[in-house]
């Protein structure tokens, strides 16, 4: 497996992977929560604060012009990464949640009205449920939910059943953070567009696993976070089609988003600045550009088959553990493994595997409706990245077996 993919050397790029936890080398399997950062990203943050620290789009002095140029260079890197048609379609936000809230607040408030229906699925992250619920409370719009089958997936025809003449917006996650399911988003976008319905894609768990070409996908909006893409926390992206963004009102008012301000009337700046009020996370944006450079040096053509092999290895290894139940068994899956054990609550398992230096996520993963669907209070989740190895999975399995032994005493 490692022949085509030099994971041993790749791991050296991530200093946090080489730490010791509870006396053992760390096994980090919580990549869906956040990914580790390569040294180049860390160095870029330090470089900005050491030698380029300045505000953007403001001063005429050397530092401000330098910071602005680096900031805008990062925007171009994101544009290329997504293959967006225009630079002005890339808006920097705080993260996926902020990006979705921008669309809900701006597009939703301006263009959706009482009785209009918004389609989401039952596997959405809370960040793609709650903002819509707030809008529904305020405007009287109606949330329609695509149900899941027993594998944790839905089909195009399940979507069609929910679609109605009242549907005015579709907002769906591409890859589920708690199940790993890859959804039939390209087909859904085609159908939605044939009814002139815009589609927002939550790409938080997608852009780190596979290439996304927004022109080919033809999504109207795409949201993702920098920190799940090996970049810093506190920075994210909203891609939006220019014609839609242009007709949308601003999300927040403040500096940088204006063309001119008098106390009577303000005219707004052009895209993308109209949606970037206030001083942004400048270092974060620049370092996100560096994270994209890093991914490009490896390439998804190598990342994807490697992660697929890891997923197959992990699925097989976990299934060998007696009584372990996989949660999320869709045919089309990314490298996310959720599971439950009948005798050990996920939180106890999380603590016990942590004693062995293995970091997994336990809980509802901000997807409580998914937990309800599978009738479990919580799951344990191992989410993989390209720097994980089969040895990491072996250590996970070994630590689960050990936890099982502790819990089977006294029964």
């Amino acid at each position, binding site marked *: 497996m490692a022949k085509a993919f030099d994971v041993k050397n790749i791991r050296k790029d991530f200093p946090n992977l080489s730490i010791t936890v509870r006396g053992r080398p760390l096994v980090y399997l919580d990549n869906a929560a956040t990914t580790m950062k390569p040294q180049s990203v860390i160095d870029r943050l330090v470089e900005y604060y050491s030698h380029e620290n300045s505000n953007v789009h403001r001063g005429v002095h050397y530092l401000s012009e330098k910071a602005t140029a680096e900031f805008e260079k990062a925007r171009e890197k994101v544009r290329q990464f997504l293959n967006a048609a225009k630079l002005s379609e890339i808006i920097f936000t705080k993260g996926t949640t902020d990006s979705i809230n921008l669309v809900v607040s701006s597009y939703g408030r301006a263009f959706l009205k009482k009785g209009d229906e918004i389609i989401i699925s039952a596997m959405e992250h809370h960040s793609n449920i709650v903002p819509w619920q707030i809008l529904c409370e305020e405007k009287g719009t109606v949330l329609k939910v695509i149900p899941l089958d027993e594998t944790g997936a839905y089909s195009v025809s399940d979507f069609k059943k929910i679609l109605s003449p009242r549907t005015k917006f579709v907002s769906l996650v591409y890859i589920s953070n708690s199940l790993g399911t890859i959804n039939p988003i390209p087909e859904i976008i085609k159908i939605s567009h044939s009814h002139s319905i815009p589609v927002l894609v939550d790409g938080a768990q997608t852009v780190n696993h596979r290439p996304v070409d927004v022109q080919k996908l033809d999504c109207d909006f795409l949201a993702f976070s920098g920190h799940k893409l090996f970049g810093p926390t506190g920075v994210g992206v909203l891609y939006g089609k220019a014609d839609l963004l242009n007709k949308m009102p601003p999300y927040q008012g403040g500096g940088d988003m204006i063309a001119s301000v008098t106390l009577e009337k303000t005219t707004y700046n052009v895209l993308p600045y109209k949606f970037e009020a206030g001083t942004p996370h400048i270092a974060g944006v620049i370092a996100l550009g560096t994270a994209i450079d890093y991914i490009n040096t490896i390439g998804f053509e190598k990342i994807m088959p490697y992660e697929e092999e890891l997923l197959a290895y992990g699925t097989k290894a976990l299934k060998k553990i007696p009584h372990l139940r996989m949660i999320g068994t869709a045919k089309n899956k990314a490298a996310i493994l959720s599971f439950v054990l009948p005798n050990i*609550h*996920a939180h106890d398992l999380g*603590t016990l595997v942590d*004693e062995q230096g293995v970091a997994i996520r336990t*809980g*509802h993963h901000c997807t409580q409706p998914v*937990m309800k669907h599978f009738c479990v209070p919580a799951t344990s989740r191992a989410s993989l990245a390209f720097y994980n190895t089969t040895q990491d999975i072996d250590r996970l399995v070994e630590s689960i077996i050990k936890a099982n032994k502790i819990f089977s*005493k006294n*029964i």
Partner: protein
Amino acid sequence: MSENSRAELYQQVILEHHHKPRNFGELTDATHDAEGYNPLCGDHLHIYLHVDDKNMIDKVAFNGDGCAISRASASMMTVALQGKSLEEAQKLFTQFHQLILGHLKPEKDPNHLGKLAIFSGIWQYPSRVKCASLAWHTMKGALEKTKTISTE
């Protein structure tokens, strides 16, 4: 912190109470009851108390779902509260609360915790403190006639 002190969280006593919880079930003649949720974990407990006319807790029970820590904590709480006055229950709540936050050291600070002192190491697991406190907060809520308690 040492490896050993952390490994002590899942001691025999806790596992034993988890597997064979005491006073598990509903109290049909409860004078006080409340439901407790930990929305972060999905833990859910229902605590029932019967307080007699002398303000003594003569019966306690619980049911619900949760992790080993929350279940064992609830089970041990029901044992500890049996026969206590309302005032004593309040005192025990305060002491237990101080214990799990690491502010009360059972080996040197005066207390009436008895077997509950087993939870003394839990402050080293900040994410698990709420698991241990859920039953106690719910019990306090029941006595104060608050129907639903949420710890987050």
